[in-house]
């Protein structure tokens, strides 16, 4: 009986709700769907992209047990010969792996120079596809392209591919194209001897793939090998190759996932507040059901069932929506969600039935949690009290919330001080959740205290409004909380993004002091400006001063992504003056050359000012004294700046790949750019811009990257507002009889509407002020904890005052309009019928 009884009541209540307020039902379902969709689509896109990336790396590493890697400029071939004599090595393949600069293009192409016969043992899948054509690969200018590369470069078999080496252009001949199945990413394959010849790396390789005899302990062999290798050459497990790429994008992925969690949290909250409101609104009829013999647990289960029904619908919709979004992202955008770190071409949506079910379950659970508290409270209400009306026990319950609220605030503040877990700001997110929850729990108490302060104005409209708010405090607190949650999150995000943007803007200004910039395609290993080129560029008419830089990748730790070494500034004093330094010490007396590390090196590697940093350069470890920490927003995995003088002394390399140019006054930058291109061999591939243009473009990219965040935040606030307006209209409807009586005793329509508007403005002003305060607190956690721990760079706190003021005014206005509009609707039924509870 009990079960069918609950079910019957559940059905009746649910249908009645649906009929009465389909809009409210719909908004709650949509909010849940949004959270689930966001979470599952981010997850699907990430796993699909990472999986694709993982597959590609696996193909490249092939059957190797160990990958020996050196810096981009490599190490002498002799190491290969030495290793070949090591016992328990069964196969060995030398590789020259380069990001090759293409003439007339800004992109680079990854090219592997390999010994085809040796590679056939270690990368059988790739070499197998080449088959007979392997012999043609021995031609000096021959290159084999993957089908992705052929498509991207629009090249067919037999056509020419022009590459840049130094500043001269060389032609390669495409002798064949790999099938799509063999390798899905962009890649070129050459014979290693041809590659060494073409790319001026005679006698050098930068990677050796090793396969060990069966039965060898791979790990101890690798550790052992590691100690024997020259500085800057490392022995890596193949898994690390894959993981490294994954680690770089980890912070970014976690941030997106957390955004999805925030959406789910908002969804849960919406279920909680709409269910609580609808329970409050129906308390008389629920009490009547209890009086008629419905048991406590039957009523609780029926109400819980209502929430679960919302959850099931929303989650179903969300899971389907998530798959559609993920498929669209993978099809139309590169699969890295705009981050650019992980460009996986051709990733396809992988079905993940288990995870889909998990996301569905999370959505339902979240709705269930949201519905549980109001269901339990309603079932506990003594029916006699509820039949008579008034807030009764709900108010008492709201009053007790403040202890847990304060406890959550304290907990949240404490969590914010904890360090990251595995490079992720997990405690930071927990702190945000705790602070939000605590602040929401405190809303009723703060409302009660706030209204107690409200003086009697002896204006009947205002006084009545204040009294009604004071008495129905849990009701107003509930409708307020949903807007407080979404608004404070929006405020926090806005402050964080604004702070970041301002810091980024300053940073760009500091780093771009010259009039113009020029650089070789970023990330390439082959194109550079020789000392001669630099001298010629510096004397182009119109140029007052030129300064050149050399950047290259250096691997400090085999388990992490390479860092960027930047050689800039002729003297060490110049270097320090040009950088946006956060902290520095004077190291004039120091005999060791100095280095300036980015914050990532400090946070991730643990280096401090005064430490000695060993950088493998030119086959030896060179010591640098860390003299300062600078802010670098461009290189997530860390960077270190040394003077060009020190760099050249250590390596003998006086080439450059970037330059800053100061112009004589009145010089036209376009003309200068044209002349610069004519000066060097491969001038067309040079990227030449004015600092102003680069500055603007960087800010545009910044804004675009955060557009999606803004869009999501706005959606959250709209959902919150809709929640408030449904709450307003349902309370206005519930107060119809009251309005009818007030009309009888002579209150004007406009006075009643004015009373509702006052209530709306009072509550929303309170909500907005509260939300601003909470948002500011949350933004501190975002700026100083979550941003810092995710990206390892600092930003300066700055508040976008005007936009926040405008937004607040709009919200308060919207709430007032909503109140007036729902009052109108409630008054449209005439006063006469409203008091007809008496027949």
């Amino acid at each position, binding site marked *: 009986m009990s079960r069918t009884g609950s079910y019957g009541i559940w059905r009746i209540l649910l249908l009645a709700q649906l009929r009465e307020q389909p809009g409210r039902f719909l908004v709650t379902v949509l909010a849940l769907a949004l959270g689930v969709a966001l979470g599952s689509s981010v997850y699907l896109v990430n796993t699909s992209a990472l999986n694709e990336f993982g597959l590609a790396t696996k193909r490249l590493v092939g059957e190797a047990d160990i990958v020996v890697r050196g810096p981009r400029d490599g190490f002498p071939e002799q190491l290969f010969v030495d290793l070949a004599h090591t016992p328990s090595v069964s196969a060995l393949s030398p590789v020259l792996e380069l990001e090759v600069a293409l003439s007339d293009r800004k992109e680079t192409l990854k090219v592997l120079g390999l010994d085809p016969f040796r590679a056939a043992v270690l990368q059988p899948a790739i070499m197998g596809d080449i088959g007979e054509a392997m012999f043609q690969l021995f031609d000096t200018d021959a290159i084999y392209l993957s089908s992705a590369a052929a498509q991207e470069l629009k090249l067919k078999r037999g056509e020419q591919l022009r590459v840049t080496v130094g500043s001269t252009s060389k032609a390669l001949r495409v002798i064949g194209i790999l099938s799509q199945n063999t390798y899905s990413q962009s890649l070129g394959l050459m014979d290693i001897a041809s590659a060494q010849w073409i790319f001026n790396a005679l006698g050098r390789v930068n990677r050796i793939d090793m396969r060990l005899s069966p039965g060898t302990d791979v790990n101890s062999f690798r550790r052992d090998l590691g100690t024997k290798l020259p500085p800057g050459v490392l022995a890596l497990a193949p898994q690390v190759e894959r993981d490294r790429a994954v680690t770089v994008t980890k912070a970014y992925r976690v941030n997106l996932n957390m955004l999805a969690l925030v959406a789910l949290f908002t969804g849960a909250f919406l279920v909680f507040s709409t269910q609580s409101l609808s329970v409050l609104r129906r308390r008389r009829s629920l009490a009547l059901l209890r009086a008629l013999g419905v048991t406590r647990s039957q009523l609780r289960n029926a109400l819980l069932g209502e929430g679960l029904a919302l959850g099931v619908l929303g989650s179903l919709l969300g899971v389907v929506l998530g798959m559609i979004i993920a498929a669209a992202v993978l099809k139309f955008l590169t699969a890295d969600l705009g981050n650019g770190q992980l460009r996986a071409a051709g990733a396809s949506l992988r079905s993940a039935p288990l995870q889909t079910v998990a996301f569905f379950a999370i959505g339902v659970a979240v709705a269930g949690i949201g519905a549980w508290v109001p269901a339990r409270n309603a079932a506990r209400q003594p029916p006699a009290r509820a039949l*008579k009306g*008034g807030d009764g026990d709900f108010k008492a319950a709201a009053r007790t919330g403040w202890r847990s609220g304060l406890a959550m605030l304290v907990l949240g503040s404490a969590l914010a001080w904890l360090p990251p877990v595995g490079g992720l700001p997990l405690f930071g997110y927990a702190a945000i959740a705790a602070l939000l929850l605590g602040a929401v729990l405190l809303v009723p108490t703060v409302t009660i205290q706030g209204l107690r302060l409200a003086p009697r104005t002896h204006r009947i409209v205002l006084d009545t409004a204040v009294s009604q708010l*004071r008495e129905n405090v849990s009701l107003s607190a509930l409708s307020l909380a949903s807007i407080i949650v979404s608004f404070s999150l929006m405020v926090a995000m806005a402050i964080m993004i604004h702070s970041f943007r301002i810091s980024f803007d300053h940073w760009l200004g500091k780093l771009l002091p010259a009039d113009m910039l020029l650089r070789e395609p970023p990330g390439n290993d082959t194109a550079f400006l020789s000392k001669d080129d630099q001298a010629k560029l510096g004397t182009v008419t119109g140029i007052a001063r030129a300064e050149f830089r050399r950047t290259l990748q250096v691997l400090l730790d085999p388990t992490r992504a390479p860092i960027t070494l930047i050689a800039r500034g002729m003297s060490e004093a110049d270097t320090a003056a040009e950088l946006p330094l956060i902290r520095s010490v004077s190291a004039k007396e120091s005999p060791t050359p100095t280095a300036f590390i980015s914050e990532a090196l400090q946070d991730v590697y643990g280096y401090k000012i005064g430490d000695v940093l060993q950088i493998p350069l030119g086959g030896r470890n060179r010591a640098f004294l860390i003299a300062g920490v600078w802010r670098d927003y461009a290189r997530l995995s860390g960077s270190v700046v040394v003077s060009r003088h020190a760099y050249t002394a250590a390596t003998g390399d006086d080439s450059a790949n970037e330059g800053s140019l100061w112009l004589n006054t009145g010089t036209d930058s376009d003309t200068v750019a044209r002349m610069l291109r004519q000066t060097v061999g491969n001038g067309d591939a040079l990227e030449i811009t004015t600092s102003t243009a680069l500055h603007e473009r960087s800010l545009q990219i910044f804004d675009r990257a955060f557009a999606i965040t803004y869009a999501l935040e706005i959606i959250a606030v709209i959902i919150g507002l809709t929640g408030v307006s449904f709450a307003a209209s349902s309370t206005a409807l519930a107060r119809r009889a*009251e309005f009818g009586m007030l009309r009888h005793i002579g209150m004007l329509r406009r006075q009643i509407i004015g009373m509702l508007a006052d209530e709306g403005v009072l509550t929303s002003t309170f909500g907005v002020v509260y939300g601003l305060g909470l948002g500011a607190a949350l933004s501190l956690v975002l700026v100083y904890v979550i941003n810092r721990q995710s990206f390892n760079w600092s930003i300066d706190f700055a508040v976008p005052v005007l936009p926040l003021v405008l937004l607040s005014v709009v919200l308060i206005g919207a709430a007032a309009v909503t109140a007036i509009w729902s009052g109108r609707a409630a008054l449209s039924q005439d006063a006469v019928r409203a008091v007809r*509870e*008496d027949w």
Partner: protein
Amino acid sequence: MIDPILQLEGLSKRYSKDRPAIFEDVDLTLRSGEYLAIMGESGVGKSTLLNLLAGLDTPDTGRVVLEGVDLTTLDDDATTRLRRRTVGFVFQAFHVLPYLSVEQNVALPLDLLGVAEPERGRRTQEMLTAVGIEALSQRHTRELSGGEVQRVAIARALVHRPRLVLADEPTGNLDARSAAQTLTLLRAQIKANAGAGILITHSRAAADTADRIVVLEARGLKALEAA
């Protein structure tokens, strides 16, 4: 002071075109100090009539003249202002505001009329004493019994000394003892304030507390023949 307080001439009302009129040809004159009971079967249109004469609804034909003003010529705001000053209401379902205290509920009409302290407090206190609930003045209405709430409603209906008090089945929700007390109180207060009153009821015993009884029928108001 304008006498008669209320005059109805040839009132008729229908709620929809395709249904017959609820009532037609209703004429009535009510003078100062008069206390009238209107009886009739349930559904005959007693409440409808009450709404018409308070200006809460408009008749299809006929005139309602309240304090010498023809309500049918006024707009909604003007009618409301006239009602605010001239009429007091007592409802069957009490209709007090649960979020205000007893004292605040009673003072509502004074607030609406802009009566300032100390006058407001004095008159509220007087009225609370008159209906015998001065001890409850700071309580919230949900803590009171039905009879006590109806006293609050009566106090509210009379606190601004309206010339006309309208009571629609004021004892419908009360037990016999509270009902008798309420009716006695209502009559005493109407007489004390020298206004006029209309009591709507279907109970003969209740109607007997009035000076005069009329019966509402579809064809108009008929004086009750002496039983």
